[in-house]
């Protein structure tokens, strides 16, 4: 399952050889640990924004070394570009060129985060132009970053500001190792909802989280990550996967609930278990999913229907139950896929279900918000799992190396970290969105 190529080109003799031959060298990504620093160096803030000073103060309170102007010769761990006050594409020049000059100072694993406003249909054309232009520029910058550094953006919608809870939440997420495999992506802060955790080391403290499909792969990693972040985890999977499920549960101190998510009463049983055994239900991660790949010309009803039933219909049915129960502050995070965005040969059924998740999440946002909750999705790209290990080696290597900006597949933990963030109270203002965790890939499985 491990990416042996990545190991080879990053260690010892083979590293020298790879350099000599000019082989592509995928970087080791900077991943999160409870005790790792938020950024690997000082952060430089470029540009102006209404509440830039509050932002700087906040970042200082996070223990960061914040530079407001030129950083001189010192190395940088992060770069924040405040672009939300620009009103014409001509104004981009100075900030982008200053950014370019600062790029050389970035250490491996550094982060560039832009702050901008959404380009809307009723904006002045010049304003919409500069805002949409930022989107293109940042995605291109993502492709130019090296050494595992990434470039992502925060979009401030409506009356939100850079110090809105979810803007700060998103900023911390992009800064930290939690976003290691997130590159070239934007998160839009839509409301003032949400709050930052009391203890950044345990952002899910006191929460009860349910993870479906938790026996192995990404689901098991989600369970471990949520538990590490302080949540009590209920692990759900099919009875057939019960032994693997129990192992994960015993690792994370959670409880198992064996059921088929396509069962009519799955939502009710999940809710009953969480409420009676743990006293509340704060987060549901709809992770259970299957693939039944076939070219559409060869597709049969069993393949098509089972994928739809497990990957999307079950989630719709369970969400109805959760909504009807009016659980206060319930957060739902669903697993989409880049296949549902970019399409993937042999996956019409899978892509229909995963595109379906993205649509469901967008359309359910207001419903969950009524009770103070939210619903979001994560769309993984190529993730190294048992499932993707079955892809032929050649295809797998291409998927890892050539297509994503980060030149490697992601790990299950990268998806789990994004889910942990989106499922936390800090992300409440991001309601309705789907975040890609794909290393800025063009396709995905």
């Amino acid at each position, binding site marked *: 399952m491990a990416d042996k190529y990545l190991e080879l080109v990053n260690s010892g003799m083979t590293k020298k050889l790879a350099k000599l031959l000019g082989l592509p060298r995928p970087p080791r990504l900077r991943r999160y640990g409870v005790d790792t620093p938020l950024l690997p160096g000082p952060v430089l803030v470029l540009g102006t924004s209404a509440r830039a000073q509050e932002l700087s103060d906040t970042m200082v309170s996070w223990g960061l070394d914040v530079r407001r102007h030129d950083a001189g010769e010192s190395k940088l761990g992060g770069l924040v570009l405040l672009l939300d006050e620009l009103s014409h594409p001509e104004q981009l020049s100075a900030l982008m060129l200053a950014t370019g000059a600062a790029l050389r100072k970035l250490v491996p694993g550094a982060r560039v985060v832009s702050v901008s406003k959404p380009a809307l249909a009723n904006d002045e054309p010049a304003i919409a132009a500069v805002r949409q232009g930022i989107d293109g520029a940042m995605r291109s910058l993502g492709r130019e970053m090296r050494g595992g550094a990434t470039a992502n953006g925060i979009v401030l919608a409506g009356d939100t500001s850079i110090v809105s809870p979810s803007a700060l939440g998103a900023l911390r997420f992009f800064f930290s190792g939690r976003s290691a495999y997130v590159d070239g992506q934007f998160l839009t802060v839509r409301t003032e909802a949400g709050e930052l955790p009391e203890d950044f080391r345990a952002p899910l403290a006191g929460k009860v989280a349910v993870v479906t499909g938790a026996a192995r792969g990404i689901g098991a990693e989600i369970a471990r990550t949520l538990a590490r972040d302080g949540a009590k985890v209920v692990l759900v999977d099919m009875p057939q*996967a*019960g032994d693997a499920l129990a192992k994960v*549960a015993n690792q994370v101190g959670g409880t198992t609930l064996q059921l088929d998510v396509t069962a009519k009463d799955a939502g009710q049983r999940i809710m009953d278990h969480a409420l009676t055994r743990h006293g509340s239900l704060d987060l549901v991660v709809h992770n259970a999913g299957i693939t039944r790949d076939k070219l559409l010309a060869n597709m049969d009803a069993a393949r098509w229907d089972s994928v739809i039933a497990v990957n999307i219909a079950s989630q719709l049915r369970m969400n109805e139950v959760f909504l009807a129960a009016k659980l206060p502050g319930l957060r739902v995070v669903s697993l989409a896929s880049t296949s549902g965005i970019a399409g993937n040969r042999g996956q019409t059924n899978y892509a229909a279900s995963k595109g379906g998740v993205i649509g469901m999440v967008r359309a359910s946002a207001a419903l969950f918000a009524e009770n103070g909750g939210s619903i979001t999705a994560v769309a993984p790209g190529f993730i190294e799992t048992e499932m993707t290990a079955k892809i032929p080696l050649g295809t797998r290597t291409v998927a890892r190396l050539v297509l994503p900006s980060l030149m490697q597949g992601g790990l299950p933990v990268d998806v789990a970290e994004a889910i942990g963030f989106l499922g936390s109270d800090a992300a409440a203002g991001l309601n309705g969105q789907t975040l890609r965790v794909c290393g800025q890939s063009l396709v995905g499985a």
Partner: protein
Amino acid sequence: MADQPVRHAVIIGGNRIPFARSNTAYVNVSNQDMFTAALEGLVARFGLQGQRIGAVSGGAVLKHSKDFNLMRECVLGSSLDAATPAYDVQMACATGMEAIGSLANKIKLGQLDSAIGGGVDTTSDAPIVVSESLRAILLELSRARSTKAKLGALAKIRPAHLAPSAPGTGEPRTGMSMGEHQAITTHAWGITREAQDELALASHKNLAAAYERGFFDDLITAFNGLAKDNNLRADSSMDKLAKLKPAFGKSLGEQATMTAANSTPLTDGASAVLLGSEDYAQENDLPMFANFVDFEAAAVDFVHGSEGLLMAPAYATARLLKRNNLSFEDFDFFEIHEAFAGTVLATLKAWESEEFCREKLGLDGPLGTVDRSKLNVNGSSLAAGHPFAATGGRLIASTAKMLHEKGSGRALISVCAAGGQGVVAILEARK
């Protein structure tokens, strides 16, 4: 202590691994592996990681001598607090019943707040014993001091000595297998082949239906690639069963009725049941499936007397009902372990017999008729299989859940055992 009120012993839930026919799915798995797996599934289901449980008690009928501390070794290999005491119990096929019943008593007395009881058995990884004559030679060898004496002992070994004594289910005092014993009882009570096949078929159909409706979702945890009892034949039929040749009682000729289908096969498996006081369950936000009310053991003289080997539960039930001032009408479920279909049917017939109940049980009249619609409603050992010591835990957890689903009522559980013994128990739904 003596003045303390007796508390309720509550069955919180259970877990077992799917049962596997001998030499199939669990062929390379030990008793310790299986019971640890059952324990780990239970820990995961109820979130007991790192908890100190009052006691873990259980056992195995077929046991290697190295497994002298089987339950404790399983606890040490589990996610429970290593400070959880554990001990082995053995009462043939009633091992699980005895273990759990005794734990319930300790909870009632306030000696324990929480407990796990159960059992495990494998006939695939059974101990093999060397022949008695070889054993005598080997012991002599170990006592020998001089080289000459050692060589002398070794020289006595003959090829014939190397044939191992395989474990069996034979009764030491009669030399007859359990099946042959039951064949006598079955014949004596005039139980027909058809009646036995019907019971076997019902067991398979009921077990299949229970799986179908998800009844076992919170009672079983998959193990070693198996998610369901592999003895289950959901597509069985009277026609198929009628084609089988008799396996026991062949000396009865045309009147032999017991086949491989209406007798339980040798099986591997493990089960565990979590019990606690009401306070323990409430403090840990755990469900309360049923109360363990009472249990009773009985034994019959099948060696010198005239009673059938597996008839002891008939006696135990009479005493248990009397002690609790209950009759069959007071029960909603009857779980009678299907060692053989003939065992269940002979027992039912005995309870209906005025003569048997007066003369053997010392009652004024028949104990009564068991409503067949309340009998083994989710299948029993003929379909699930019967890993000897694990059957008690299977029965108690499943029955407790049935009472929990119904929300009221009582259940009688009956398990016969080798040596002419048996244990029966009463469970009661939580109000």
